[in-house]
């Protein structure tokens, strides 16, 4: 595999899975033009006039959709670790004897380790999405047939639009749907909030299948997915367990050290002058990121400050802010807990959004850059403020990118992270995998101090005299190395074997993940 050095100084392949790749050219330096992908023309006369698109089962739908070897099937992670549909889908694909599928999920979860056997037997050729937990281990050890492709939520939409990924069949789980294919996620026994990640797929895929466990007579209102984009509807017993949409990363931390970080985040947002009437923020998942919202809430109440909007991942904590009048709107990208689901259903000011409006590089602007501050996590940050969210310091893939890359465009991007976890330094010399260029990352907040990107002179000035523990990031790194017993050794990897690539929001290749040698 031929590797070239990209503008970030990382070595990346120019061809992956038989497709040409463009190396990263720098932030905002790549702009594809022209018309690259369009949905094929459809005609209503090809569909039942009575509007009933229900077929017997998933296998029938796949057959009617013309499933063949080597096709691309997309799925979505709205039920997170409670999703049963994706596993059901690939059981059907396997039974049909189909091979070499490109699986294009919006994210994967540990529940999908069920699919490892299909990666092993060739049913699935490779994954373009996220490779979490057991799937990450499988991929990193070089066992996947093709090369994995990691994209942000916005990047996923971009890849549909500029033809990087053509979806043959989109399988969309819908907690409520009608026989015409109108579908919503905010109600039904498996309600998960919104199903906005599937929007692009429903528009650009050749065939779209809705899978529901709550089939209602036409019309299903509201319709987050329009039936006019749907080919088939399949009714199943159960989509999975909606209780598990609450994953480990959506509970407030109890750790005193993480709470300290969260407190610093709230203090910083106040001291930097970001917390003022009409401001906006985005809170990611992860215990620390949820906790800072609680601290900020107290400050907002004390000062009588109200936000214009807050972006989720919504959780009950954001919902409380909305219901207590501390924000006008929640613009929700995905719903992290059942309180979020309830609020979205009941409160018109809890608005569902999609990666198109929020994150898309090929949109005519997007929400991410309007947000005043985004508080995010990372697995590693280096002294140049570059950050990693997909691999662990041992080189193994463990997370997807999610909306993280897209959120870096906020006016003040804060990474709230411990400086080390157990004996694993988080502040390092150089990140194992580059996912976010340091020029977009403004502030690193750890329990050992706050480092501000030297290029944000305005922020440095704003918090001067605030009493906050502002430190040089190199100083924090030095403290961490002293505690951990020296700088960590790097993983031993096979530099000739790229197991996955990390895409930047514009579709270029930012970095490679290499096979870890055991």
């Amino acid at each position, binding site marked *: 595999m031929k590797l070239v050095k990209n503008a970030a100084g990382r070595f990346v392949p120019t061809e992956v899975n038989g497709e040409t790749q463009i190396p990263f050219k720098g932030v905002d330096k790549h702009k594809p033009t022209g018309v690259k992908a369009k949905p094929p023309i459809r005609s209503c006369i090809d569909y039942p006039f009575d509007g009933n698109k229900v077929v017997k089962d998933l296998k029938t739908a796949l057959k009617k959709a013309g499933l063949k070897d080597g096709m691309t099937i997309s799925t979505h992670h709205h039920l997170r670790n409670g999703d049963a549909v994706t596993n059901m889908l690939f059981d059907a694909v396997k039974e049909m004897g189909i091979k070499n599928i490109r699986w294009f999920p919006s994210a994967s979860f540990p529940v999908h380790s069920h699919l490892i056997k299909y990666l092993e037997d060739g049913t699935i050729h490779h994954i373009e999405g996220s490779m979490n937990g057991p799937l990450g281990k499988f991929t990193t050890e070089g066992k996947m047939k093709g090369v994995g492709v990691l994209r942000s939520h916005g990047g996923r939409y971009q890849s549909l639009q500029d033809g990087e990924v053509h979806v043959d069949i989109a399988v969309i789980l819908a907690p409520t749907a009608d026989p015409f294919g109108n579908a919503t996620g905010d109600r039904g026994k498996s309600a998960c909030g919104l199903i906005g990640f599937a929007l692009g797929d429903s528009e650009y895929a050749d065939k779209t299948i809705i899978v529901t466990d709550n089939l209602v007579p036409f019309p299903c209102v509201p319709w987050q997915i329009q039936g006019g984009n749907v080919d088939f509807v399949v009714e199943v017993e159960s989509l999975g367990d909606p209780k598990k949409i609450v994953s480990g990363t959506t509970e407030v931390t109890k750790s005193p050290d993480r709470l300290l970080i969260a407190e610093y985040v709230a203090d910083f947002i106040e001291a930097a002058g970001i917390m003022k009437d009409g401001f906006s923020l985005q809170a990611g998942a992860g215990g620390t990121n949820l906790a800072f919202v609680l601290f900020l809430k107290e400050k907002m109440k004390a000062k009588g400050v109200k936000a214009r909007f807050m972006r989720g991942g919504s959780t009950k904590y954001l919902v409380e802010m909305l219901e207590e009048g501390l924000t006008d709107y929640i613009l929700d990208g995905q719903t992290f807990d059942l309180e979020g689901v309830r609020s979205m259903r009941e409160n018109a000011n809890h608005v569902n959004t999609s990666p198109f409006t929020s994150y898309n590089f090929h949109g005519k602007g997007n929400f991410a850059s309007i947000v005043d501050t985004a508080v995010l996590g990372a697995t590693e940050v280096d002294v140049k403020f570059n950050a990693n969210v997909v691999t662990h310091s041992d080189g193994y893939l463990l997370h997807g990118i999610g909306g993280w890359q897209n959120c870096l465009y906020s006016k003040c991007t804060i990474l709230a992270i411990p400086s080390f976890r157990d004996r*694993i330094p988080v502040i390092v010399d150089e990140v194992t995998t580059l996912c976010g260029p340091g020029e977009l990352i403004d502030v690193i907040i750890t329990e050992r101090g706050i480092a501000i990107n030297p290029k944000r002179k305005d922020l440095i000035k704003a918090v001067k005299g605030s009493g906050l523990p502002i430190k040089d990031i190199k100083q924090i790194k030095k403290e961490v190395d002293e*505690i951990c017993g020296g700088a960590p050794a790097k993983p031993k990897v096979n530099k000739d074997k790229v197991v996955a690539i990390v895409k930047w929001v514009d579709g270029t290749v930012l970095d490679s993940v290499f096979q870890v040698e055991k």
Partner: protein
Amino acid sequence: MIKKLNKSSAGKRGDSVRSDCYFEIELKNSGGIKIDLKSKVDTMYGESIKQMILDMCNYFSIKDAKIICEDAGALPFALAARFELAVNRLFPENKKEYLLPFNEKNLYSTKKDQLRRSRLYLPGNEPKFFVNAGLHSPDGIILDLEDSVAPSEKDAAQLLVRNSLRSVDFYGAERMVRINQLPKGLDDLKYIVPNNVNVILVPKCESAEQIHQLEKEVEKLKKQFKVENPIYFMPIIESALGVIKAFEIASASKNNCALAIGLEDYTADLGTQRTNEGKESIFARQMLVNAAKAAGIQAIDTVFSDVADMEALRQSVMEAKSLGFEGKGCIHPRQIKVVHEAFAPTNEEIEKAKKIVLAFEEAEKKGLGVVSLGTKMIDPPVVKRAIRTIDLAVMNNLLNKNWKAK
């Protein structure tokens, strides 16, 4: 060394263990050192852990052994303590100590009348709590060798506490150790006195004689290890007898810096229940404050055990403050800030103190022996208290330290 067993173990293992490790050493007759390492941080620190094990084997003259190490991200100070414990359990006569370099940030000393509003208890055998404890800015950190350590792990905690006193940066917090009840606690001293402990907490203290015993042993060790920094004592009164003897205990040594009360054991001793109102302990607490003040030292209140109820903690501290206590025990880092805020002076107190301090300085400048504010004469202790109030106000960010400059 005299070999008693050929296999020993130390430390913790299992899925829930974090920042700790487990060692098994099995002596062999030949074959050199064989290390079987399973570490969560193998990629990052596997080589360095193996090197450390080889160094320790060499230091303790272990030449042929099979060593199992299950590591859940233990920091070097914890790894070394666990290994040394396995060695000690194998060779009970071992006198050698494997000492990591003394972190020079840890050489500070403290004052007898140091602020001691909060002191955070850390179970002595739980290394995961040590490293970040100082970040929460308690006035003192207590590494506990007594009640939070299982009887079978006392030897483990001694080594861990020793190593952490040397290696772990507590960010300026006063370095305290609660030893075991005397006379057993005397065995703990050799692990802490040479390693710059600032304050020794003496649990269940019931007589001046116990403090004398402690003092003698501490002096001996200080001389032996050429320790120059002061080491203060904080007797903890936890029984009816202790309360009655409070003054005798408080005045037993010039090294006593404070007298603390422990109410769980005390109420048990009285045969009563601990209540939120605390009527049952009002005599003991007042007696303790009085004894401490009579001896010229600080009075420190018991811990507040409901870690979720911050408002009740605040109330409890306000009450303690009104009784004359100057500090409170903390069992969770989140309690520290609340305790500091509640002990902080009120605005009224600060304003009054400012006037007194200014009047005092004015009088000094004029060479007057008597300080007066308006028509009122001000006694030296009032001035001293005002200065203390100002210090507290500055420390709690309620007053700029250059307040006189306006």
